[in-house]
């Protein structure tokens, strides 16, 4: 079995939980002392740092949401002065405020450590040539994986995303053994390989670490068959630290959450009750070692279950199932987070267009596609095709510039989109996830 840090990853539960409690108390103390927004929330909930005396007491603490990050944009939740912050990442924030996250030097180190564990768990080592095709930049994927790959002493190709032909050429010429990218991009690379006549057997690829978007077991099989590799799921989100929060081991029956750095809970997204292990609900994560941006009971909106059975791999850390969906209506399309509310605000800004719409997400070939159906109204209807097509093109342009991804707009007859009775269904996700 390959571990990066066997002591931490396979620590027996009692000492692990002692460490968790000590770190939880430190995190709560620091958050209460240095982050006014956390203090306000805890005061409002009537809980003081001294009330946290067991891991069970975590439940007394209020949740943190993406909205809290937005409300405290950009640095309001930081627990360190900016002089101690060495890195800032941010979500795309296509409408409204983006969410901003910061790292101390130690946080960057922790992150690299977590990514090192993840890569080793997925079969990488110092002899690996790791081609990192996650985007470099404000997105945490690129730099997160990069630091971990360097930490284990692998040879890193910082390929970033895009220019697929060159990606394939790099894989072939540099002897890439581990590929890291989104699962859909892995399949796209295979498509280009076929186009230019490169077979998987021509490459030295052994494994892939795929994440940043939901993917199914079917897709795993497809990637593994086509690229002739082992495909590992990785989980992370920038609010918590970035990629490396959880990773599959060689048994691939759930992703081990790095419990010496995070506490995971599952809640009912509506009642906010903490659920038993094995029950499906929303994953809530508390950071235990983050200095710059401590996160207390952060609601990830990702739906999964937790399994505390000890894994045959020897790791004692809890496993989360592959993410099954979202408790909000966010969809991730080609790595971009899309909320129906963003589409709605764009439509409301176009004169005479009614905000009756539906998002249809599908995977054509290997690429996710977004279709936005918009109900036609008498005010935009015309007997001339040209004018309707101009309207369609205008809506397309506005949506694309707001969402940052390609959109296909389809005008549909009125009243064909389900009206909201309580919670409207705004998204149909046809991808087999």
């Amino acid at each position, binding site marked *: 079995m390959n571990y990066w840090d066997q002591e931490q990853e396979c620590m027996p539960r009692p000492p692990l939980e002692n460490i968790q409690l000590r770190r939880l108390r430190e995190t709560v103390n620091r958050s209460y002392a240095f982050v006014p927004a956390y203090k306000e929330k805890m005061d409002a909930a009537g809980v003081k740092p001294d009330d946290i005396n067991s891991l069970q007491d975590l439940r007394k603490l209020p949740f943190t949401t993406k909205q809290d990050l937005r409300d405290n944009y950009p640095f309001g939740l930081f627990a360190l002065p900016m002089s101690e912050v060495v890195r800032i990442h941010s979500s795309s924030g296509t409408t409204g405020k983006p969410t901003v996250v910061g790292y101390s030097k130690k946080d960057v180190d922790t992150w690299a450590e977590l990514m090192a564990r993840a890569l080793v768990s997925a079969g990488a080592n110092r002899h690996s040539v790791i081609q990192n095709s996650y985007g470099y930049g404000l997105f945490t994927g690129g730099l997160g994986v990069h630091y971990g790959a360097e930490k284990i002493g692998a040879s890193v190709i910082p390929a970033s995303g895009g220019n697929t032909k060159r990606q394939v050429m790099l894989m072939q010429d540099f002897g890439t053994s581990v590929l890291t990218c989104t699962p859909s991009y892995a399949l796209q690379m295979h498509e280009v390989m076929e186009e230019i006549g490169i077979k998987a057997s021509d490459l030295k690829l052994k494994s892939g670490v795929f994440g940043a978007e939901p993917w199914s077991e079917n897709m795993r099989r497809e990637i593994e068959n086509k690229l002739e590799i082992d495909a590992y799921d990785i989980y992370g989100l920038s609010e918590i630290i970035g990629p490396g929060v959880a990773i599959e081991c060689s048994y691939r029956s759930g992703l081990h959450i790095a419990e010496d750095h995070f506490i995971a809970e599952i809640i009912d997204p509506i009642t906010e009750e903490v659920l038993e292990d094995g029950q499906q609900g929303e994953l809530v994560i508390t950071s235990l070692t983050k200095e710059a941006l401590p996160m207390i009971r952060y609601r990830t909106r990702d739906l999964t279950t937790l399994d505390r059975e000890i894994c045959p791999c020897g790791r004692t850390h809890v496993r989360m199932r592959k993410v099954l969906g979202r408790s909000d209506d966010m969809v991730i399309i080609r790595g971009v987070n899309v909320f129906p509310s963003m589409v709605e605000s764009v439509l409301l800004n176009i004169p005479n267009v009614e905000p009756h719409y539906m998002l249809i997400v599908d995977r054509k070939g290997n690429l996710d596609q977004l279709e936005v159906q918009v109900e036609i109204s008498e005010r935009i209807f015309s*007997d001339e095709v040209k004018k309707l097509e101009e309207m369609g093109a205008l809506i397309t342009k506005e949506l694309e510039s707001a969402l940052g991804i390609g959109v296909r707009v389809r005008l549909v007859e009125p009243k064909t989109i389900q009206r909201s009775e309580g919670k409207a269904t705004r998204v149909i996700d046809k991808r087999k996830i």
Partner: protein
Amino acid sequence: MAKQISVFLENKAGRLAHVTRVLGDAGINIRALSIADTSDFGILRVIVNDPDKAYRILREAEFTVSETEVIAVQVPDSPGGLASVLEQMSEENLNIEYLYAFIGSSGNDALVIFKVEDIEKARNSFKERGIKFLEEQDLYRL
């Protein structure tokens, strides 16, 4: 001048059948029709015997409908008849958005429905040049 009823139709099975059934059940007779289609949707354009009623009942049936002013031109029903009208319209710089043929005829003339950019200008030009067209009530009575 004449009123054309235009209806938005999604490219889905049964939509055209539905709209014509709604008109038929209301006793409305379709006298001319054309469909403009794209990959996603179509626009049905009809001339009917009672456009105001057609407009009302289609709206009640929750179709997206509009009324459009068009002009029903009497075109000599002989080779070159339409060409001659089109040439004269071109000389007058009358921009045509679209046109389609009427199912019936008027005397010895065929009828062609024109949607033009500037309908007043078209009427005046037609009068000057002696191109015949039907007034609204005459058209619906055909």
